[in-house]
Every structure is written in structure tokens, then in C-alpha cells.
């Protein structure tokens, strides 16, 4: 088991190196020249100063000749490994790394709650749909999952604001739920836990719907596969009570693929969270990236991409390891 984890860990390295090369090329080939920044900041800057800054950044060598791209990459990668992620342009006195750390906790709360609710809804519905295959319940919820997967997140978010904020505000004078932000402003209860939860309600609901729909389908098909298996028939033939067959023999095995699917979908949640956070003006990493992109803050944008890529690769590893743990049939080689 330990050698399996170590080997999978080592396999991560070439993938991460490739991703970092891609990120670097994007940054260098599409981003503005640092000299342009300096001219933008100070139009009367002297050419010697620009040259000195370029030398300091490793773009040109001592004689003023441009450094080859792949050598620039090594300088850049060295900086990343040493924790030099660059300064943010739009958040003053904050490095790209600090910017991520600043907004990450808010995102984790939002995504954690959405994940939890999605699982709590999807798993029971998926199981019940499979047990009552082709029943009215099954048809309604299977069609419902299609609706859930086809709903564009940003439209759902806007409609939620209209239905739960704007319309009650106009009809009854007070909205049922706030239209966004982290907490109330200038109220005695601002920032209290239930005030935070109240602000989280709509974003969490919107974010959880897409995952919920997908997971219900996976849970259903995984359960359907298992209850047709020979060992389930054997258990029934031995006279094991139906409840025990379902919950002890079938369900435990049906949940195994769900572990992988849930783990693998965590990095993807950041994408959905980006739109949800933006519409609800919720200060998380997704909205941070969006603001960085609009403000042409390349350091923060690239740091966030690298962070998310690392997360994706890491969760792939976690999924493999968890799968090996929960399913003893998997051999580690």
C-alpha cells in the first residue's frame, strides 16, 4: 500500500511539470511585457531602468540579449518553488499566494456546504430510484436530473435572486434572502453565524444543484449494477431479509464508485463556484480569479491556475488511494 501511494505520488510530478510549462508559456506569450507595466506606471521612465529591471527578472542577460524561453522557464519555476509567486496588481501589498489564502476559507465554506447537501440529497434519491426502477418516482427523478444538469448556473443564480430577493422585497417590503455578499452590513447581528448562514443559503442551493443531479444518476446506475450481481441473488436465495440484502450486501458495494466520483468532482466545483460567487458577490477564490482576469492581474490569475491544477492532480491521487482502501479487490500494482 505504501509503495502504491509513493508510486502514484511520483507519477504526479511529470504531470505537474507539464502543467507548469503550459502555465508559464501562457503567461509569457500572452501576458504583457514587464516593461510595458513600467511604462504604464511611469511614462517618463528611462530605458536603462527598463533594461535593469528586465535583467533582474531574468528576461535579458548582462549584455542585453534576450534569454531563451526555456532558461526563463527554469528561473520562473525556481521562483515558484521558493514561494516567489509575484505581487498582486489589484490588491495592494498582497502576494498572489496571500491573495489565494485570503479568499480560500470563504470558498471552502461555500463548497463544503454545497457538497454536503448534494450528497445528502443525491444518495438516497439515487438508491430509491434504482430499487424502484421504472416506477413513477424513478421517471420523475431521472428526468429531474436532466433538468438539473442542463440548468445554466448563472441563470439559476439570477432567477434565485429574483424569486427569493426581488419579488418578496417588492411584494412584502422585505427580501426573504439576501442577494449576495458574505454577511449583513452595519447591523447589530452582522457576521453572527446565522447571519452568515442566511447569506450562504442561496449560493449553496444554486451550487449544489448541478452536482446533485449528476450524482443522483451515478448512484442510481451504480446501485442498479450491484442489485443484479450474483452475490446479491445468492444472499436472497439464502433467505437473508430484503432490508439486510439491500443495506448490507448491495449498498456497501454500490457506494464504492461513488467515493471516486465525489473525490474527482471536488476540483471541478471551483469552476462552478466561480460563477456562483460572481453572481452573488461572494468573496471567494472564484470571484477573486474573475476580478484578477478583468484587472489583468497575471500573477494572481496564474497562481490560481497552478493552485487549481495542483488540487486536481492531488484529488486524482486521493481518489485512487481511497478506491484502493475501500475496495479490497483492487491490487496495488
Amino acid at each position, binding site marked *: 500500500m505504501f509503495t502504491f501511494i509513493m508510486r502514484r505520488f511520483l507519477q504526479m510530478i*511529470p504531470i505537474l511539470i507539464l502543467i507548469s510549462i503550459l502555465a508559464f508559456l501562457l503567461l509569457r506569450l500572452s501576458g504583457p511585457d514587464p516593461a510595458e507595466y513600467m511604462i504604464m506606471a511611469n511614462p517618463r521612465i528611462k530605458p536603462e531602468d527598463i533594461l535593469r529591471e528586465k535583467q533582474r527578472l531574468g528576461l535579458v542577460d548582462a549584455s542585453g540579449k534576450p534569454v531563451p524561453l526555456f532558461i526563463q522557464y527554469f528561473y520562473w519555476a525556481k521562483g515558484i518553488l521558493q514561494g516567489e509567486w509575484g505581487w498582486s496588481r489589484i490588491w495592494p501589498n498582497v502576494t498572489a499566494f496571500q491573495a489565494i489564502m485570503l479568499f480560500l476559507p470563504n470558498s471552502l465554506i461555500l463548497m463544503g456546504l454545497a457538497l454536503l447537501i448534494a450528497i445528502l440529497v443525491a444518495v438516497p434519491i439515487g438508491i430509491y430510484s434504482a430499487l424502484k426502477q421504472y416506477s413513477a418516482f424513478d421517471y420523475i427523478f431521472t428526468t429531474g436530473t436532466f433538468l438539473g444538469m442542463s440548468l*445554466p448556473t448563472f441563470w439559476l443564480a439570477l432567477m434565485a435572486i429574483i424569486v427569493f430577493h426581488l419579488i418578496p422585497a417588492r411584494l412584502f417590503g422585505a427580501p426573504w434572502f439576501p442577494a449576495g455578499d458574505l454577511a449583513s452590513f452595519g447591523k447589530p447581528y452582522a457576521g453572527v453565524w446565522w447571519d452568515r448562514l442566511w447569506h450562504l443559503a442561496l449560493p449553496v442551493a444554486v451550487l449544489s444543484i448541478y452536482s446533485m443531479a449528476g450524482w443522483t444518476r*451515478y448512484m442510481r446506475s451504480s446501485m442498479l449494477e450491484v442489485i443484479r450481481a450474483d452475490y446479491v441473488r445468492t444472499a436472497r436465495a439464502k433467505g437473508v431479509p430484503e432490508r439486510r440484502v439491500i443495506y448490507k450486501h448491495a449498498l456497501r458495494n454500490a457506494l464504492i464508485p461513488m467515493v471516486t466520483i465525489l473525490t474527482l468532482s471536488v476540483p471541478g466545483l*471551483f*469552476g462552478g463556484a466561480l460563477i456562483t460567487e460572481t453572481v452573488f458577490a461572494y468573496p471567494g477564490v472564484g470571484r477573486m480569479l474573475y476580478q484578477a482576469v478583468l484587472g489583468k492581474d497575471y500573477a494572481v490569475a496564474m497562481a490560481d491556475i497552478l493552485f*487549481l491544477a495542483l488540487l486536481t492532480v492531488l484529488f486524482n491521487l486521493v481518489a485512487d488511494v481511497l478506491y484502493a482502501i475501500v475496495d479490497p479487490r483492487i491490487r496495488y500494482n
Partner: protein
Amino acid sequence: MALDTAVELAPSFSYWQMVWTRFRKHKLAMFGGSVIIIMILLCFVAAPIITATTGYHYTSMDLPNRYAFPSGAHWFGTDDMGRDVLVMILYGGQVSIEVGLISALAAVLIGSLVGVVSGYFGGWIDEALMRFTDVMMSLPYLPLYLVLAMAFGPGFWTLIGIFVGFGWMGDARLVRGVVLSLKNMEFVEAAKAIGASPWRIMLKHLLINSMAVIIVSTTLLMGGNIVGEAALSFLGLGIQPPQPSWGNVLMTASGYIFAPGNGPWLIFYPGFFLFLTVLSFNFMGDGLRDALDPRLKGYR
């Protein structure tokens, strides 16, 4: 008893006739297919006709008539510049559908070629292509789309480039899987024996037999890319106004969601058209999967 009684021959059907029979039975897929055809007719045929008869166009502003309530003259009301919302949606649909169809077709073309080459040749070619596919798949999509749109300047062809560049991996893996299961079968061996070139085997035999997977993934990708276009345009990094698209009509509407004159229909209608179209592509993909290859049924 005479042995020469006429043998009742079962009527013979071609593969595509059987596919059509199965597809027709799938009610949701038929619904999806009809909606897609109606949507295309509305956007590409009805929109110019409406412009010709009523004079409404996405550039014709009518400032005294801003935020008009839906009525006989403006079925879906008017927006912040007095433009007819229905006309905005229909012209917006043209761009959204074009982006979805073109990018999905191109992405699947590339993905299928990568998949068939990888699966057929195996060895280091397979290893290299699949590792590259893995890397592409572990990139965070939406954040990267944003950065690329920022880098190359938002627009129609940037969107297509992004969706093709990051859309081919799923199909490549599926086609590779099918090819791996086919390439040791007798018909491939027979083709080799009579001297068919590798390219002929890959294109004429293996790709043709992967058509079920290819068609289904194209359909699902079209729906996915239409949402993708809308999402990027909604964030202001896709199609730019005044050219409308479902995403940027929603973006404009969301900008004055709290304005006193605003009506919810400005948000509801464009999103509903988008939702209906994507839902239809998903239904159709599901129906096509069942119709093209009944063995795949239930494996979603």
C-alpha cells in the same frame, strides 16, 4: 408434408433504420430533437423575417420605450435600450448555436483522430498521447478559459479555439477504448491480410465502427459548449455587445437587475431559451446512445 412450404422471411432492416425505430420510441429524445430543429428555424429563418416585417433588429433602439412590459407589440417586452427582447434572443441564438455546433464538430474530429491513432498503434505513441490527454484533463477549465479569453481578446474565434482546444479529450478517450476492443477482431485482421494500409484500417474500419460513441459525444458536447459560450459571454469574456448572444443578453440584464424599472422577464426569457436548448441536446444525446448501441443502455 411438403418440405418446400414458403419460409416466412423476417423483414430486413438496415442499421440506420433500426436506429431510427429505436430513437423514435425515446419520447424525451424526440422532444429534444424537435426543440432543436424549431430553435434553429426560429433563430436562422424567423429572425430575419421578423426584422423584415416589424423592423425590429438588435441595433434598433427605442429609448422612450425602455423596460416595456410584454405586450402584443413586444411579446417578450423590451430591454434597457428599448430593443425587442424576442429579437435579441433570436439573433443571440444564432451566435450561441454556431459556436456550439462548430466547436463540438471540430473538437470531436480531433479527439477521434487522437483516439484512433492512440488505440491502433499502441506503444509509446499511445503512452505519449494519453499522458498528454491526462494533463489536458487535469487543467482547471473555467479559470483557464477566463485567462485565455483575457490573453487572446474575447470574440467568436477565441471561443471556438478554447472549446476545441479543451474539448477533444473526452472523445479521444472514448474512441481509444472502442478501438482497443475492436483492433484484435477478425475483420481488422482480414483487412490487414489483404494489404490495407494502417490509415485505411483506422479511417474506414475502426472510426466507422466507433460512430455510436462519436455521435453521442458530439451531441453532448454541443449542449455543453452552448452553455460554455453563454457562461463566458455572461462574464463579459465571450461574444461582445452589440452583437447579442444568450450569455451577453443575460449579462446586460443582470447589470440592471436591481434597477427600479427592471422586469424579471429580461432575465427569464434568454436563460429559458438557453436552458431549453441545452436540455434538448442532453435528451437527444441520451436517446441517441440508446438507439445507436442498445448495449450501452443504462450506462450513463
